[in-house]
């Protein structure tokens, strides 16, 4: 049996008490999405069902409904969360209905999608939810048959008394079971008894997605709803000076043009009408702050790298002495551009601010934060705000920010009408919370035997916060180490972008370690393993990564890729720890007419127990495609505060023909899940750049690769 902490048990019981005692509750979704087309999902839910706890209800008709509280943006949480409950319940998966829960801070906690944290955070809680209900159902059957609960078992949604060959479905027992006291100490399954966890289960929304049912924020259409687009300043650092909206207002379908803050909102009766009328606005802006260009940032990076005033993030030993005594010093700089999140569904939100409360609906990774910020903005109690969570057409961190929710709420409060604010793709790309542009300088000191005796990293970035992860590998394995950073504050807004900071830091670090291994005349894999050995035997300072887990993925990736033993291909290695999980990758590059072509990527991932094999496999593959695509092609640059790429015609995303074969393997170590939404992305750039070096002798140190002189005319298929 798994250990539960006192705190998690208390939280669980608190959640349980909300609906304890067999509350009869109809799961009537309040959604009126695309009126006449049905509900978001779960449209055929039973009218009345017995609520066992916050996650689970069972109807007398034997329909098991599992609520999925966290925002679904493609990380497959809406399938994997219910699988965990259903596993411990021993439910018949084919009879399980999954429903997206709205924001409910009484029933759920951490209704957030971010940090690859949902499954690690809720693992025990969800298992207990299923196991507790299962035990109550068994108790109910024991009472009815007048036998001991110990003589009963469960399978596939039935309680079974093997001795008398009797069976009852959970539905038949639901009412009686719900009246029983809630057990406080239930036994969880041994991992080896999992039937559902670890199998490939198809996405619960497949049917809705492949038939075009309304699921997403942009699919929200409500009674009396108006449509709006907002013209925001075209450059970061500009503010609104004056607006002439006369021509726009006169166009058909336009209800109003409203100014608030630096925003000019065109409100009307259809999307196209407001998009068209927006073009007729005559707006003047004036500078409010510096209007920065990418050329300014390049110059700034050089200054900041030499700035005497840096924030020290980690310091071990005497780094100056180590470099003075070094037999060899390796020094390199790496740089990445800003990136847009560009989820396929642009930002949007619905808001209806009424005197008695607020209705919000749409795609957000942080519904509670969005609600609380709206409450503060409008000065009303959070309890008076409902937030209906739609499926998210991607997020990648962009929807952690609530700016677009606040805009919709503010606009609705001004026009006193229900309104959906739609961002065009150009709005989405030019009004982002971007992955910050960052430059790193790495320095390594080797002794005469090729041991790394000193390591320095300075990270400088534009609104990057701390662009280092000072306690990550190789910290702990080097006696003399200094990691520091300098940040430039800019009007350009930045924010978390899938695998924040590590999405580029991992590339830079893993490519640099390759350079050091080469200088030390060591095999890159062997070099890393030696460092890990050192960290294990003679740790320097605090070590915050798991040496054995990192070693595990290194060894698995080496084995599966036949590292170092293949002829005719050039292999590059990379390994990274992020968000509690470990992923090693080997990229294989071939020279085709002297052009490097990425043919295959092997991945070995340790995310603990894999919940849904289908979803997990695709998380790794998708993460690699994401990491490869942005390393190769994507760049957002600025001229006088304005983005220079506003749509997919010049902001390049990876396409189908450009993805290599990807071979995914999981470490099977039985530890509780540690998250998989992000960790597969960071290692990819390094593995690919290191393989390209092997193939061509050219080091790629800046992204996107395709714009570097080393790869002009190069291509990836």
């Amino acid at each position, binding site marked *: 049996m798994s250990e539960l902490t006192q705190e998690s048990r208390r939280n669980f019981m608190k959640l349980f008490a909300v609906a304890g005692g067999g509350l009869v509750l109809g799961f009537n979704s309040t959604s009126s999405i695309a009126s006449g087309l049905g509900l978001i999902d779960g449209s055929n839910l039973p009218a009345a069902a017995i609520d066992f706890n916050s996650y689970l209800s069972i109807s007398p008709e034997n329909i098991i409904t599992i609520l999925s509280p966290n925002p679904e943006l493609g990380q497959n949480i809406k399938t994997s969360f219910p699988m965990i409950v259903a596993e411990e319940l021993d439910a018949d998966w084919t009879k399980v209905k999954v429903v997206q829960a709205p924001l409910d801070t009484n029933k759920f906690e951490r209704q957030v999608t971010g940090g690859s944290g949902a499954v690690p955070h809720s693992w025990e809680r969800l298992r207990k939810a299923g196991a507790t209900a299962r035990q109550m159902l068994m108790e109910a059957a024991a009472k009815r048959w007048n036998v001991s609960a110990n003589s009963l078992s469960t399978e596939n949604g039935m309680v079974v008394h093997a001795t008398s060959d009797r069976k009852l479905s959970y539905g038949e027992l639901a009412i009686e079971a719900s009246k029983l006291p809630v057990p406080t100490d239930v036994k969880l399954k041994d991992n080896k008894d999992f039937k559902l966890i670890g199998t490939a289960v*198809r996405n619960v929304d497949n049917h809705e997605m492949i038939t075009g049912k309304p699921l997403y924020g942009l699919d929200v259409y409500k009674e009396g709803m108006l449509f709006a687009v907002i013209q925001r300043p075209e450059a970061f650092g500009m503010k609104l000076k004056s607006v002439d909206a006369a021509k726009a207002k006169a166009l058909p379908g336009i209800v109003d043009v409203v100014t608030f803050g630096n925003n000019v909102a065109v409100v009307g009766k259809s999307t196209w009408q407001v998009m068209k009328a927006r073009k007729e606005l005559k707006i003047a802006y004036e500078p409010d702050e510096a209007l920065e260009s990418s050329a300014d940032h390049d110059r700034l990076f050089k200054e900041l790298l030499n700035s005497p005033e840096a924030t020290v993030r980690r310091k071990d030993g005497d780094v100056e002495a180590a470099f003075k005594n070094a037999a060899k010093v390796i020094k390199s700089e790496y740089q990445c551009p800003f990136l847009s999140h560009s989820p396929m569904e642009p930002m949007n939100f619905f808001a209806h601010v009424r005197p008695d409360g607020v209705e919000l609906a749409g795609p957000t990774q942080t519904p509670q934060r969005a609600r609380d910020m709206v409450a503060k903005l409008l000065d009303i109690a959070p309890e008076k705000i409902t937030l209906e969570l739609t499926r998210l057409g991607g997020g990648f961190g962009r929807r952690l920010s609530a700016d677009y929710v606040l805009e919709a709420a503010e606009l609705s409060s001004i026009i006193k009408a229900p309104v959906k604010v739609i961002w065009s793709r150009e709005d989405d790309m030019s009004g982002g919370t971007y992955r910050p542009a960052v430059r790193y300088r790495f320095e390594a000191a080797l002794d005469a035997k090729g041991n790394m005796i000193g390591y320095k990293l300075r990270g400088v970035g534009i609104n990057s916060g701390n662009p280092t992860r000072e306690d990550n590998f190789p910290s702990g394995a080097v006696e003399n180490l200094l990691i520091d950073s300098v940040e430039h504050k800019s009007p350009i807004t930045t924010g978390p972008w899938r695998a924040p900071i590590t999405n580029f830091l991992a590339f830079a670090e893993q490519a640099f370690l390759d350079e050091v291994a080469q200088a030390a005349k060591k095999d890159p894999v062997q070099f890393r393993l030696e460092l890990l050995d050192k960290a294990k035997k003679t740790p320097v300072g605090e070590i915050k990564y798991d040496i054995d887990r990192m070693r595990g993925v290194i060894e698995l990736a080496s084995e599966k890729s036949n590292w170092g033993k293949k002829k005719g291909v050039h292999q590059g290695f990379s390994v990274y720890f992020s968000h509690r999980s470990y992923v090693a990758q080997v990229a294989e590059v071939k020279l085709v007419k002297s052009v490097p072509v990425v043919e295959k990527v092997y991945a070995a991932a340790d995310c603990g127990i894999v919940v849904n094999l289908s979803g997990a496999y695709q998380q790794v593959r998708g993460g690699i495609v994401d990491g490869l695509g942005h390393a190769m092609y994507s760049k957002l640059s600025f001229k006088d505060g304005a983005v220079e790429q506003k749509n997919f015609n010049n902001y390049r995303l990876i396409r189908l023909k450009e993805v290599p074969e990807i071979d995914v393997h999981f470490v099977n170590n039985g530890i509780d899940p540690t998250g998989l939404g992000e960790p597969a992305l960071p290692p990819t750039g390094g593995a690919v750049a290191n393989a390209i070096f092997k193939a061509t002798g050219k080091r790629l140190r800046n992204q996107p690769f395709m714009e570097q002189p080393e790869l002009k005319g190069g291509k990836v298929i």
Partner: protein
Amino acid sequence: MATYKLQINGRSYEVDVEPDTPLLWVLRDNLGLVGTKYGCGIAQCGACTVHVNGNAMRSCVYPVSAAASAKITTIEGLSEAGDHPVQLAWDEVDVAQCGYCQAGQIMTATALLNKNQKPTAEEIDNAMNGNICRCGTYHRIREAVALAATKLK
């Protein structure tokens, strides 16, 4: 504003919109057919793909005035029960992550298979390369198109 008679998914609709309104927004705002998605508005991503007289078409740049005499199929009209071979293949391969681009992917794949029942891997790649999937489900898209081809009658 003008009135247009549209043939969509075997049904007749009448809408009163401006002539330059893209078919995409007529489908979504006027007819409630929201399976067709807005992604870029400039025919770069393929999320809005529908069939016009059997051909894959980007509805975000296709004005309603041009659609008046055409036979239009959207994701909602691909099959009654969601059991078109391409839809079945998409489910079986478990293609979707966020799912937002997938209706457009399915419509592009279906248009390909309507013309070429046994596409080669290269022909699949060429046909599908115009549709962006930001989640990176490309491997499964390839696999699903090939699987769908085996399911065609």
